[in-house]
């Protein structure tokens, strides 16, 4: 059912980088203070605009990583080798620097914390970011909706939110986390590697509830293959919401 979507025009806000949290050798989370932030729902994204001194400017979209928390926003930036914006956000932007952004954007790929339906989240690479916002919001809101996160990543070196996911996985209370390592698995995880295929997905996702809300996010190829696996196992396509980051997962 469509929700109310009549809103004001978006305008650019100037945020300040308040703090930084390193996630991996090539990814970090930016903790931003955004005066005038109207709040957001997990799954939404923001657009960032960078402007050079000669007036050249470029924009990119980034999923919000954090649960709603007043005027504070977190973005997790993965450094891409041939990126134009990610090197600046992942390496150059410093505490106290301004960052122009607008948002929140997106009414389709969102999870409402008041929704009691069970939730299945499947993320590939940096596709886990908006799903992490959903996980964090579930915890912060006290929602008891059963929620399961399946996160596919290359290795322990590329795993985002490692410590937090370990704590959540140990915590139970209707929230479960499974990490699928596609290239090399850390010791103690059974050493199993390989892409998230139909069998592995079936084993991890468990029985398909008729009412489960499924969110799939990541590079286009990953999302296409997971969405196909889900629907070929009988899931109604309308239960599956997808967000594709493009061929490489962003820049």
């Amino acid at each position, binding site marked *: 059912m*469509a*929700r*109310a*979507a*009549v*809103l*004001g*025009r*978006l305008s650019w806000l100037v945020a300040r980088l308040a703090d930084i949290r390193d996630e991996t050798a090539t990814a970090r989370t930016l903790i931003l203070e955004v005066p005038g932030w109207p709040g957001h729902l997990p799954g939404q*994204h*923001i*657009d960032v605009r960078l402007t050079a001194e000669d007036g050249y400017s470029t*924009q990119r*979209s980034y999923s919000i990583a954090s649960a709603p928390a007043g005027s504070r926003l977190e973005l997790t930036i993965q450094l891409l080798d041939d990126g134009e914006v990610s090197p600046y956000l992942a390496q150059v932007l410093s505490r106290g620097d301004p960052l122009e952004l*607008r*948002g929140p*954007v*997106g*009414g*389709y*790929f969102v999870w409402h914390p008041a929704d009691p339906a069970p939730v299945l989240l499947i993320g590939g690479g940096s596709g886990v970011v908006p799903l992490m916002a959903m996980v964090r919001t579930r915890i912060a809101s006290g929602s008891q909706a059963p929620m399961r996160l399946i996160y596919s990543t290359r290795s322990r070196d590329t795993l985002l939110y490692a410590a937090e996911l370990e704590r959540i996985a140990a915590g139970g209370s209707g929230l479960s986390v499974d990490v699928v390592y596609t290239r090399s698995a850390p010791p103690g995880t059974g050493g199993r590697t390989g892409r998230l295929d139909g069998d592995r997905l079936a084993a991890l996702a468990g029985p398909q509830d008729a009412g489960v809300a499924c969110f799939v996010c990541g590079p*286009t*190829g990953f999302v296409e293959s997971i969405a196909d696996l889900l629907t070929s196992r009988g899931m109604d396509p309308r239960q599956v*919401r*997808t*967000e*594709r*980051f*493009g*061929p490489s997962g962003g820049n």
Partner: protein
Amino acid sequence: MTDMWTDGNSLGGQLREVFCADLTAATGRCAGCGRTGQLAEGRAFDHAAGVVLRCPGCGQPLLRMVRGPGRTWLDLRGLEYIEIASPG
């Protein structure tokens, strides 16, 4: 080689600059093949002179948009209608 398209979610910000509504969550009917779906499910070709959102079924443009300095042009002929939820 994968084509350079993302889904309609990525157009949310640009469309919000023009409309006071989140069009990505709106439902539309393709004027080409009659498929209905949310605009977020369309294929957004945003690396071009303008933006083209194509029907995931038949590939025809649902909407096209060009942003010029101080004005934006929109072609919505590819949508027979758009349904946007309103409060109340």
